[in-house]
């Protein structure tokens, strides 16, 4: 059984892996053959080599960006979920808050990032705020959708048993909405990475976004590429972590016959 699953996974992975390797080979060969200068397009091998020489620096910068990303993500969940609850439970709050949330979403974050940094100052906190601003919207919208999607029969059932609103929320509505909360969280975690980098672009002396910015201004393109690769890896790992937590907390979502 496990062997068969392994073989199937290997089969599913074979094609994308081959494609990726093929693309890297073509990239390497083309840049060498046409003598493209390294500051315009470095070869994959140089990117890796350069990344390796700077590995200890990258460790600190990665840590800073990870910290900002996780901070922004945590904040977007801590603010987004209760906000969604407020919107679903109170029509007064809905009409008061919804326009503000949509307004906050419609302002381009790159446009307000400089202002934010001006107001809040330097360090990691303003980047966390930018990451939060970029990430919280899908959390609010998805959680609210999930909470509103409770089957009306279950609400009637709870009411007929005279269960309190809190009991109904904890035992029915919140668990019912969990898949939606996770859908929002998966979008939010990848957006948080973007938000952290945007924050670093505007003004910082640490983090992978800062590395990209300063490397390109010194024509060290391979360093910028290494930084990009680390950012993508970070986003993929974080997305995978959220998916893992989802599978652990909502095992009933696994398609039948998979266990």
């Amino acid at each position, binding site marked *: 059984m496990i062997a068969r699953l392994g073989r199937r996974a290997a089969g599913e992975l074979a094609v994308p892996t081959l494609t990726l390797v093929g693309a890297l080979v073509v990239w390497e060969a083309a840049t060498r053959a046409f003598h493209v200068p390294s500051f315009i397009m470095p070869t994959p091998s140089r990117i890796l080599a350069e990344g390796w020489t700077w590995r200890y620096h990258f460790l600190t910068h990665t840590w800073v960006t990870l910290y900002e990303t996780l901070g922004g993500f945590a904040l977007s969940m801590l603010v987004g979920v209760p906000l969604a609850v407020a919107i679903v439970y109170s029509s007064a709050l809905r009409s008061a808050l919804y326009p503000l949330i949509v307004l906050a979403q419609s302002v381009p974050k790159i446009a307000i990032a400089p202002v934010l940094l001006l107001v809040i100052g330097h360090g990691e906190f303003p980047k966390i705020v930018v990451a939060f601003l970029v990430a919280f919207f899908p959390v609010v919208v998805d959680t609210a959708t999930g909470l509103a999607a409770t089957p009306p029969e*279950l609400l009637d*059932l709870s009411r*007929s048993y005279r*269960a309190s609103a809190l009991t109904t929320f904890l*035992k029915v509505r919140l668990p019912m909405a969990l898949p939606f909360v996770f859908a929002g969280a998966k979008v939010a975690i990848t957006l948080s990475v973007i938000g952290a980098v945007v924050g670093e672009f505007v003004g910082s002396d640490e983090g992978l976004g800062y590395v990209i910015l300063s490397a390109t201004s010194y024509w060290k393109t391979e360093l910028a590429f290494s930084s990009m690769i680390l950012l993508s890896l970070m986003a993929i790992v974080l997305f995978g972590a959220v998916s893992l937590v989802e599978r652990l907390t909502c095992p009933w979502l696994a398609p039948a016959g998979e266990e």
Partner: protein
Amino acid sequence: MIRLDHVDKTYRTRHGERVHALADVSFDVGENEFVTLVGPSGCGKSTLLKLVAGLTPVTGGAVTVRGAVVSGPFPDVGFVFQHPVLLPWRSVLDNVLFSVEMLGLDPRQYRKQAGDLLELTGLGGFETKYPRELSGGMQQRVAICRALLPDPSLLLMDEPFGALDALTREEMSLELLRIWDERRKTILFVTHSIPEAILLADRVVVMTARPGRLARVLTVDLPRPRTMAQEFEPRFKQASDEIRRLIFAARRERP
């Protein structure tokens, strides 16, 4: 046990339209009686159940249960809907225990009774399964167990077999009668299947639509226990023709 006295219900939809759901409906349901409500869609059958359960207020007349005017939900009711609406993250046993939990009772004290009910409905051995591993009919049995666990004296069923295939439907009807035989309750059962309405009931309440009005209350004098074979008896056919005539006559009167 239940008395509807000139009940009138008008409600507003989300778009602000006024819907006259029930107009001047009066009938009684006796203690431990099995009454079915049959009528076309839009005759306010589901609304009527909600009024009896106290989930929504009447706009005219009164609903009384055991002499007390219904003014809000009361705990002596079990509800079964067209869809089982089980909680997908709970096992079969925990889904059955959901009702006593929501009533604020200690679910641990009901585990044995829940197991007995599952046994009674042919779900013994399925306690630890999850809803998605069960067929539609089995899920609906779990929903019935959930409703029966707190041992309510009144069971309200809103087209409970409406989403099942025809064969499962017949099987479930007979099974419900068997359960009702073992645990007597007052049952108010909504359906739009005429044969189902006759097969199950002591009396059939026939309703017409827009607004929902009572056309007639028919007494079914077929002997119990009921069987599918009774469907071919002349008395069964007479009753079913009568109901059909009442429903369609009302339709023809309108332009």
